[in-house]
């Protein structure tokens, strides 16, 4: 009887040790393999004029007496905060967001990577992102849509093109947006010339920016969906 008790205690201790070792190995693996691609990993440092990126944190705000939660990345050095509302992203267990402005061809890149407790939450958030992208577009837009991917080309309020992509893999969701901007030129000196100036706004290099969007999307997704 006494031997049996010792045996049971031994087995329980052995199991606990095994579980602990497994969890430690998992934690070490998670900390050494980032699930995200940083902006530096996508383009050389000199090609960016402004950037903000980091893991999102849940922030509690009291707005007009109501407690509201947002997912947020604060970049105090550039006086910029990237925020995401729960009505769009839901309640992810983990997130990473980035924003950068590109020198040449001129453009803006923003992306966010989200991990949810289960795939159904990622699907709901993915649908909300699709709706959000459609709402951002002015006038006509092109969409290529499947159950797990959504690619869109739209135009902004000044007629400049942008591309959006939403991709899901299990409980993970990637959202990417790239805008093509014109080369910096002298602005009009008076209000009378403003309309002409707007009419002449053209992206610096639309084709190159589109290629950048496609390659960047592939690179971010390969890493995010490839690491477990």
């Amino acid at each position: 009887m006494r031997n049996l008790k010792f045996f049971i205690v031994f087995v329980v201790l052995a199991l606990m040790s095994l579980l602990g070792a497994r969890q430690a190995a998992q934690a070490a693996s998670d900390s050494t393999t980032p699930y995200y691609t940083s902006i530096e990993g996508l383009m050389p440092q000199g090609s960016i004029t402004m950037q903000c990126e980091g893991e999102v944190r849940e922030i509690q705000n009291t707005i007009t007496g109501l407690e509201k939660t947002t997912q947020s990345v604060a970049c105090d050095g550039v006086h910029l905060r990237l925020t995401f509302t729960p009505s769009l992203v839901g309640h992810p267990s983990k997130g990473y967001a980035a924003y950068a402005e590109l020198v040449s061809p001129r453009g803006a890149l923003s992306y966010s990577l989200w991990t949810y407790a289960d795939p159904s939450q990622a699907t709901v958030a993915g649908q909300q992102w699709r709706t959000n992208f459609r709402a951002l577009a002015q006038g006509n837009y092109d969409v290529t849509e499947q159950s797990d991917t959504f690619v869109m080309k739209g135009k902004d309020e000044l007629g400049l093109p942008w591309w959006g992509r939403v991709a899901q893999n299990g409980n993970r969701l990637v959202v990417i947006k790239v805008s093509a901007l014109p080369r910096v030129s002298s602005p009009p000196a008076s209000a009378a010339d403003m309309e002409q100036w707007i009419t002449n706004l053209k992206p610096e290099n639309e084709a190159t920016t589109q290629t950048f969007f496609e390659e960047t999307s592939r690179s971010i997704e390969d890493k995010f969906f490839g690491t477990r």
Partner: protein
Amino acid sequence: MTEEAHTGSATGNPVSISGHGRIKIRWFKLLALLVLLLAAVPEGVGAQGPQPLTPPQPMSWANFSPQNWEYVDGGHWLAVWSASNCYNQHYTPGDWQTCGSGYGCISNWTWWLSNPSKLGVPSTWRSVWPGAQTLNNYIATCYFN
């Protein structure tokens, strides 16, 4: 103090100090402890009666520039003031420069929130127009507490 005063008595009774009347050492120790405790209490804690009220800070309206940018849901730019109830927004290099934003001139732009005050700034105009990313180029009248 005498030798007798230092050693005390074996029975635990207070010992008299000769030449100083009837002061008991036990009461002297208690008094000393009380003095030390009172000295250690921070000023104000032990003060009696109502504290004088701090005069109310003046609340007033003044012109302020926003403190930082907020990029919301991957598509909207907001200029964020640390003050509240802002209105009468202007672009200091000249309001006319905002009129090519695609959303009208700055006076027509939408305030997203009043406290803290957040003004929607058209995304592409912000990226394209020289000086549009400089927070100090914006000003509004806000309630400052």
